[in-house]
């Protein structure tokens, strides 16, 4: 029979069962705190890993044994004969061409921008999981094959037709649905698949491909790579098949870091919630230990009992937390960000990683263990001595100072500073308590109007571990929300400002219509006919696309030379905007995101070399800029240089100025009429395009909003539960006050005042440090993302974060508080 410290396992279970019967609410609260922390971390880690994981599965499933790839440097692709030449190379086992093209699908229930992948039968030879399926004409049908989710969102059943818009043309094409079993990882993604031949026809890329996957004979890779470089001849990139994943990781890194910081703060809040619950039973546990010792228990036996209980609580709470986290992933964090889908092969598939489950589970058990350790050490209702409070305050100030120094010196580690500031918020609490209580006491001391607040203050004068832990929950949650939420709002404002400037160039925008960066080129419509329309004053050609350089998928922008704005002023960093504009118009000059320019060691006036589809080209750097809202960065040249460099005159957007006095709607109708009914292009007013961009900009950081809301809600409910539990536990004392003549309403008001003061202290400390955290986080975000995000304090946002926690906590705790205030007088005789 297994025994621990001489105790049977069954007896240990019995002790815990008795404890749950005795303190079900406190135990549930402790478990809920751990579960909340585990759930947030799990959900964030899984959803972050799933973006890159799903992309990896798609890449691996398609590429199979291929190690190398040749990729086009623009969406125009390259001649497919290159695939045959590659296959014929010595050392090449097999090679398969693909054509990837961004398209738009329009069905009865909605539209969707997505990537169309054209595959050839040779793909099957590479041995990838998806190869044989994708190369199977029967599975693909005679048109487009899409996942069940895509078909559903469009409102088209298998065998139906969908409108496909590609290269500026619209056509109806048959649709088939890939079942999950058939489509594997790809079925979970938003991509649509078709045969190479059809893809070339739909995208108007006759005999063009954008990628050739290459499987080399063992040991021949270096030689093949050299041969591929020769064949690519400077107009295509030769890389490993996983190069795209590195670019995806680079693009998602800042967002992942911010999300992880939020999750870390979520863990702290979760642990504090659990710690709070534990504190309610410290005195009782100490009595239990003493009683056991008096009964003859060895010193190890009470510890074994406490440790076993912590282990059980940790296991149960962590298990529940994992389930809750899974629910979050499925219900809230399951969206595939469109801002990545048009640039990378991301899918919505889940990426199950046992390491994440184990990590979260062990973390939860460890948190329960820490609680149990404290429970054996301290007296929760004991006042924290003023001296200890001062020591903690100095420690907090030292932490803030050290965080500042480190964040200024090494911005990359600001993320750690986010956590240390949260710790500082907790350390500040005892002194904040004394200060607030002392100040309020002076205010209320001479008046009889705030008597119930005075009664509350009597209870609060000395900060106790329990009071501090309770306020710390509110403080840390509000801190996290304000710091990260503030930085997030700065980004949004910066992006919005950029969008307004960017789109103010024209009254109407003609694009392929997707929610993207206007990087999809299309065959130009009859521009003369468009210009001749009565409502139209001017039409300018904007060009844009991606350019892979190292790990960066850069946004290459070709601005019309006749545009009033070549570079939005909000994006300028180093250089004179007038001069830079003139230079861009003249040609041979470029502006580049500062991070990219720094990486290449290029300064204003220096030559910047870009590997373009027509070979390497040099531009002189006219200015450095922020990154135009695209994390990997942007390079701007004029549209003529763009056409030369990319080898196409195809626009990716048309900027239309309307004749004076023409309304946007009338202008749109005139332009649509000029484009003709067969056009697959979308005409949008400036306001419509702006609205689309606002959504687009917010989508990338939507996860932060979701976690912030969850964190605040969890904290508010936890504070409410802790307040309610504290009120309930205090019933004998409330009954005693009743005997002294207090009415139920008076007691209830006093408890509300006490709760209000506690929450207000927590929220104030959280807000104060949150604003400072916002300052540091904003600095980090600007350096990591290159977004224009000027620091702005928004009083309404601050009040919303603090007010939400306060109102929910008070409102929820008010109900049990009312019942506690109705305690029978007999309760005061029960102790």
């Amino acid at each position: 029979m297994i025994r621990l410290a001489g105790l049977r396992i069954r007896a240990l279970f019995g002790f815990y069962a008795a404890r749950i019967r005795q303190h079900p609410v406190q135990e549930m609260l402790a478990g809920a705190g751990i579960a909340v922390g585990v759930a947030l971390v799990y959900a964030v880690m899984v959803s972050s890993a799933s973006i890159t994981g799903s992309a990896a599965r798609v890449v691996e499933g398609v590429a199979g044994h291929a190690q190398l790839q040749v990729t086009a440097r623009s969406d125009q692709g390259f001649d497919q004969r290159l695939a045959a030449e590659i296959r014929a190379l010595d050392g090449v086992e097999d090679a398969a061409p693909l054509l990837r093209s961004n398209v738009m699908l329009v069905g009865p229930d909605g539209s969707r921008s997505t990537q169309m992948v054209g595959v050839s039968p040779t793909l099957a030879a590479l041995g990838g999981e998806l190869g044989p399926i994708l190369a199977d004409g029967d599975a693909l049908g005679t048109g487009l094959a899409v996942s069940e989710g895509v078909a559903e969102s469009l409102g088209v059943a298998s065998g139906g037709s969908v409108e496909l818009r590609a290269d500026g043309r619209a056509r109806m094409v048959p649709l088939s649905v890939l079942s999950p079993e058939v489509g594997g990882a790809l079925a979970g993604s938003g991509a649509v698949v078709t045969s190479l031949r059809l893809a070339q026809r739909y995208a108007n890329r006759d005999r063009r491909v954008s990628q050739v996957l290459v499987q080399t004979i063992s040991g021949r890779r270096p030689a093949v790579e050299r041969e591929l470089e020769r064949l690519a001849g400077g107009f295509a990139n030769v890389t490993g098949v996983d190069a795209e994943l590195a670019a995806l990781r680079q693009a998602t890194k800042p967002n992942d870091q911010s999300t992880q910081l939020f999750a870390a703060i979520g863990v702290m809040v979760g642990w504090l919630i659990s710690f709070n619950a534990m504190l309610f039973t410290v005195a009782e546990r100490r009595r239990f230990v003493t009683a056991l010792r008096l009964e003859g228990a060895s010193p190890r036996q009470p510890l074994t009992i406490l440790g076993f209980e912590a282990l059980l609580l940790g296991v149960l709470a962590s298990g529940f937390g994992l389930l809750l986290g899974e629910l979050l992933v499925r219900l809230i964090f399951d969206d595939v960000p469109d801002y990545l889908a048009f640039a990378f092969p991301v899918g919505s598939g889940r990426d199950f990683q046992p390491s994440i489950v184990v990590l979260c589970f062990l973390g939860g058990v460890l948190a329960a263990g820490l609680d149990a350790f404290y429970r054996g050490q301290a007296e929760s209702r004991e006042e924290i001595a003023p001296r200890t409070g001062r020591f903690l305050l100095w420690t907090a100030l030292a932490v803030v100072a050290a965080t500042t120094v480190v964040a200024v010196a090494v911005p990359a580690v600001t993320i750690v500073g986010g956590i240390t500031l949260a710790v500082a918020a907790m350390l500040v609490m005892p002194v904040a308590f004394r200060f607030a209580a002392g100040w309020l006491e002076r205010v209320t001391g001479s008046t009889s109007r705030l008597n119930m607040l005075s009664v509350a203050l009597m209870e609060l004068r000395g900060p106790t571990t329990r009071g501090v832990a309770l306020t710390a929950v509110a403080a840390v949650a509000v801190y996290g929300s304000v710091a990260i939420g503030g930085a997030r709002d700065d980004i949004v404002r910066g992006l919005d400002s950029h969008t307004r400037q960017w789109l103010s160039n024209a009254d109407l925008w003609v694009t392929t219509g997707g929610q993207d960066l206007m990087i999809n080129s299309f065959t130009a419509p009859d521009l003369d006919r468009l210009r001749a329309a009565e409502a139209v004053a001017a039409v300018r050609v904007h060009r844009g696309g991606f350019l892979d350089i190292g790990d960066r998928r850069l946004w290459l922008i070709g601005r019309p030379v006749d545009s009033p704005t070549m570079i939005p002023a909000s994006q300028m960093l180093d250089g004179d905007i007038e001069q830079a504009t003139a230079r861009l118009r003249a040609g041979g000059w470029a502006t580049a995101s500062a991070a990219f320019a720094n990486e290449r060691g290029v300064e204003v006036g220096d030559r910047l070399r870009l590997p373009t589809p027509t070979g390497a080209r040099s531009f002189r750097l006219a200015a450095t800029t922020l990154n135009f809202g695209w994390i990997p960065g942007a390079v701007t040249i004029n549209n003529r240089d763009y056409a030369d460099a990319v080898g196409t005159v195809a626009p990716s957007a048309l900027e239309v100025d309307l004749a004076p006095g023409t309304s946007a709607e009338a202008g749109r109708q005139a332009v649509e009429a000029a484009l003709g009914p067969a056009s697959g292009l979308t005409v949008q007013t400036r306001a419509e395009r702006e609205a689309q961009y606002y959504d687009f900009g917010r989508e990338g950081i939507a996860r932060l909003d979701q976690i912030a809301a969850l964190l605040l809600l969890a904290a508010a409910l936890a504070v409410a539960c802790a307040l309610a539990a504290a009120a309930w536990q205090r019933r004998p004392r409330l009954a005693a006050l009743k005997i002294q003549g207090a009415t139920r309403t008076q007691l209830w008001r006093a408890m509300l005042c006490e709760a209000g003061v506690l929450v207000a202290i927590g929220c104030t400390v959280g807000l104060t440090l949150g604003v400072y955290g916002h300052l540091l986080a904003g600095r980090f975000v600007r350096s990591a993302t290159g977004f224009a995000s000027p620091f702005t304090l928004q009083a309404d946002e601050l009040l919303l974060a603090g007010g939400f926690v306060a109102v929910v906590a008070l409102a929820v705790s008010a109900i049990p508080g009312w019942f506690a205030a109705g305690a029978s007088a007999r309760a005061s005789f029960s102790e």
Partner: protein
Amino acid sequence: MRLELREVVKRYRSGTETIRAVDRVSLTVAPGELVALYGPSGSGKTTLLLTAGAMLRPDSGAVLADDRVISALPESKAAAFRRDNIGFVLQSFHLMDSATIADNAAIKLVLAGMPPRRARRLVRPWLERLGLGERHAATPARLSTGERQRVAIARALANDPKILLADEPTGSLDADRSRDVLRLLRDLTRERALPAIVVTHDPEAAEVADRTLVLRDGRLTDAGTLPRPVGSGTGP
């Protein structure tokens, strides 16, 4: 003020059974008279005390203070009556841990609407009389058990009550401290002409009480079994 209980009955339900915690008790306590109430656990002492203090409403009978029926007052009026007229001393003290001694003693005055600073000033003489004047700014955690009991007494007396009720006021004290507290209660009762009921197990109480009564199964009986009963409590 005179405290009078007339044929008071208080019942409780325990499962399917109805228990008469207080069974037709009649008792009159004159101003300045201290009654010591003994009885085994579960005999109904606490119920009787709560009923006498307008905390519990009797099922039948009445509690009167100077001929005013206080047992039928609605809850808010009963609370106000307690706040203004009754001093309760509880065995468990129920002091506020974080509040100072002065705050604890002044709580009734603050509940009655007095500004806290003034309430603290008013209770200072009581604290000084009880030997706590020097420690008025300390918290209960720094006091001995006897000192805490004296704070509870100061709290009971802060509103200058007309009736004094005490539940095991010496239950947590050693013999010397118990004697001190009981004598203090007797002195205060006489000095301020308060009717007082002290529920106790302490034989010393019988020495200081004017009358000694015993409650058994909810009924008052004489005190013949007590060690050294004083007074001639005969009930109504």
